[in-house]
């Protein structure tokens, strides 16, 4: 079973990378670009076949390693 874990900086945590990308897009002439936030997408192949158990395992992995809960939030989806 394939899982996709999306990790984003929490709201309120400064994302200078997102800011730079936003400025670059505006510089390229794209109009109306608001806040840009950059995150990570982690794709995982799991032996687990039960989607509920797989999702729970993914959340546990995110809490322990994939995300830093001080600065990031995560979302786990079965792909």
């Amino acid at each position, binding site marked *: 079973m394939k899982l996709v874990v999306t990790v984003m900086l929490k709201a309120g*945590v*400064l994302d*200078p*990378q997102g800011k*730079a990308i936003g400025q670059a897009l505006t510089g390229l002439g794209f109009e109306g670009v608001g806040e840009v936030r950059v995150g990570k997408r982690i794709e995982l192949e799991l032996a687990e076949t039960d989607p509920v158990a797989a999702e729970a395992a993914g959340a546990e992995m995110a809490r322990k*390693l*994939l995300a*830093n809960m*001080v*600065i990031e939030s995560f979302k786990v989806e079965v792909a």
Partner: protein
Amino acid sequence: MRAAIVVFPGINRERDMAIALERATGHKPRLVWHKETALDGIDLVVLPGGFSHGDYLRCGAMAAQAPIMAAIRTHAERGGHVMGVCNGFQILTEAGLLPGALLRNASLRFLSQDCHLRVERADTAFACHYQSGQVFRAPMAHGDGNYFADDDTLDRLEGEGLVAFRYATPEGTIDRAANLNGSARNIAGIYASNLRVLGLMPHPEDLVDPLMGGTDGKPLFDGLTQALAAA
């Protein structure tokens, strides 16, 4: 004082640290590979700077899971002294031994230059050879040194006197211009609640000899050696 330096793959400042410690203590620190699991007979554990595991995922995230970390945790829980410099600081926050996190520098630039640190308190083993309020120079070399913690944590750190060093001007002013990486409240280094675990981004170990361009970092190592001599 018996000191150990933990070596993670991708670390590159362990020899600088060994020189600084040997200068102060008169003997070579033990180099401990990250896969080891014991730290017996050690008074001070140092996590040096570098790029452990290539900074994959987040700086220090992989190293925080290393086998040696259980022994470091036990050492800290027993009241042992621990110091993390640069990547070592990042590893200590990732391991939960210090609060907060180190974000990408606000400027997005890798900063390789000197900075000035103001000593916030001098009654700790790490700072006892400085004066409270004293400013000293230290080299910095990092891309992710922007200290972050939520406001409650920052208030607690300040309230309990756990801020070790702040980025300052050479005259000791704490302002935005001195805060090169954008750290919350100019924080360059913090202590754990028992004042025996220190994490800081700049490198005092790289200014311990006139040949290095100065000795501003030497009091930290001399102070530690004296404070932990009886340990």
